């Protein structure tokens, strides 16, 4: 077995009496898309928070490329190679598409305290940002303000910003959220190609996308991983059928 790029070991987190995650251990291996699914309130957001560094776990560890990053905050984990996208787009609405991508490139390059040279003249940043935009198909929109973009284009930009980081792995929080069939299909195609660059931990509600993309699936219910395996294994798992998919599936 190849070594996991991203690994969680026994993550626990409680909010008061509510146990949001309980002993969650999952692995993301090179080249794969690993989907995490589960009903609302299953603890998916808490899990993403703990992986990205926004939420400090009560117990457990997060490893990135074999290195324990549990003590790092969000920026540190991003620098270590973890790129995340948000369920609700986190984009600077007043800025242009290119500027948003540049922000990612700047984060990857470090040195954000340069205040005398215009960003536009830092060729390396610009190349990186434009390459990411081209990858998601937003080259023509580069000079538009984010506020003028359609919802689907914003979801693409979310991915582009993550791409500028050239990360070791992606953590995507419901990238399909709010998309129609067409947009969903386009993004599915995009993510499909991305796994070659870095593996993706995909939290998603859109089951069509999940079954189309995922190499493996983990099912989270009430904060626990009740099943983990290939798509076929999960489809066949009786516990999953009962707890989550119901008999309809």
């Amino acid at each position, binding site marked *: 077995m190849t070594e996991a790029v991203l690994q969680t070991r026994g993550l626990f987190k409680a909010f008061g009496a509510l146990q949001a995650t309980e002993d969650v251990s999952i692995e993301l291996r090179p080249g794969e898309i690993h989907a995490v699914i589960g009903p609302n309130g299953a603890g998916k957001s808490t899990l993403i928070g703990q992986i990205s560094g926004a939420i400090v776990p009560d117990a457990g560890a997060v490893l990135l490329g074999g290195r324990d990053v549990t003590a790092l905050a969000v920026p540190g984990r991003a620098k270590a190679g973890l*790129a995340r996208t*948000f369920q609700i787009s986190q984009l*600077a609405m007043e*800025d242009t598409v290119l*500027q948003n991508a540049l*922000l990612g490139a700047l984060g990857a390059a470090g040195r*954000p305290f340069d*205040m005398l040279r215009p960003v536009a003249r830092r060729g390396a940043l610009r190349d990186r940002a434009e390459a990411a935009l081209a990858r998601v198909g937003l080259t023509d929109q580069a000079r538009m303000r984010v506020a003028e973009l359609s919802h689907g284009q914003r979801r693409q930009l979310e991915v582009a910003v993550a791409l500028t980081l050239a990360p070791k792995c992606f953590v995507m929080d419901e990238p399909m959220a709010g998309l129609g069939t067409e947009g969903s299909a386009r993004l599915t195609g995009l993510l499909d190609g991305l796994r070659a660059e870095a593996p993706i931990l995909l939290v998603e509600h859109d089951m069509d996308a999940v079954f189309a993309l995922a190499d493996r699936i983990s099912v989270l219910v009430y904060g626990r991983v009740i099943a983990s395996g290939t798509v076929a294994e999960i489809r066949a798992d009786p516990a999953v059928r009962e707890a989550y998919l119901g008999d309809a599936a």
Partner: protein
Amino acid sequence: MSREAVFNLVVLAGLVALPLYAHLSDAPFTITLATRAVILSLAAVGLNIALGIGGLVSLGHAVFFGVGGYAMGILAFHAQTYAPLMEWPFVVEGTKSMPVIWLVAVVFSALVALGIGLLSLRTSGVYFIMITLAFGQMFYYFAISWSAYGGEDGMSIYVRNGFPGLNTLVPVQFYGLCLVLLCAALAFNAVLLRSPFGLALNAARQVPDRVRAVGLDPFRLRLLAFVISGAITGLAGALFADLNRFVSPTMFSWQLSGEFIVFIIIGGTARLFGPVAGAVLFVALEHFLGGVSDYWHIWFGLLLLGVVLFGRGGLIGVIAGRGRGHD
């Protein structure tokens, strides 16, 4: 060229042409008034870096203004009394040289901003507004009871400090000096906006989570912005003290902090020239309305209310059309 750029040029041209007009019409006081407007503009340009770009609503920026003012007051006071500022471990003399005073003012207000920023940037929103206000009050009461430097009475400096090659006692020359500094600050602000730091700070105001997620720390970005902002406002404080040849604790008052914000809003938030337009308008209103009625604050209050409620985008917004809002 956009209408905003035209407006900016007109403002700048007006500020440059003003001494000529004052000279021709023999109205030296107009220059004094304009100097006041230019210095207050500089203070507000400083605040605008924190507030307009960084979204940090500081209700305590008068602290830096006051620190700059007292830097001037203390140095000049020791120079005019020939008493060294300190003798141990090495002798520090007072000075009447503006460049030295400016340097000290900038360094000290930056240090104070660093200290206040480290503590208050841990909070956000209303808490940030209030903790900066509290720091302002702390400095205000400290200055009032600091009897070595005049306490509430403040300090008078009898002769304006000097600048190599200029006679600063001539109003036009001092005005020119202030205007050059204002232009330098505006140019710096313009460059900053396009720089990586400007980009990151701007994003940290709009989407701090995103900024973190790409590996940058909004706290550090804001802290640096706060320090730069404080340093510029501190420089303005030193100039203001020199304009009046006087410093007092009122330079620390929270009302003054409020007025700085007022300048930015009535001018136009996050516009490069917003603080300038606002400060010039404010000084003009204070001068003319103050002459019309004892109760001019009522009219000023109503005007301010009108701008906030209906004239979003401030003066520049009205003239140049909507830019980006500040929310």
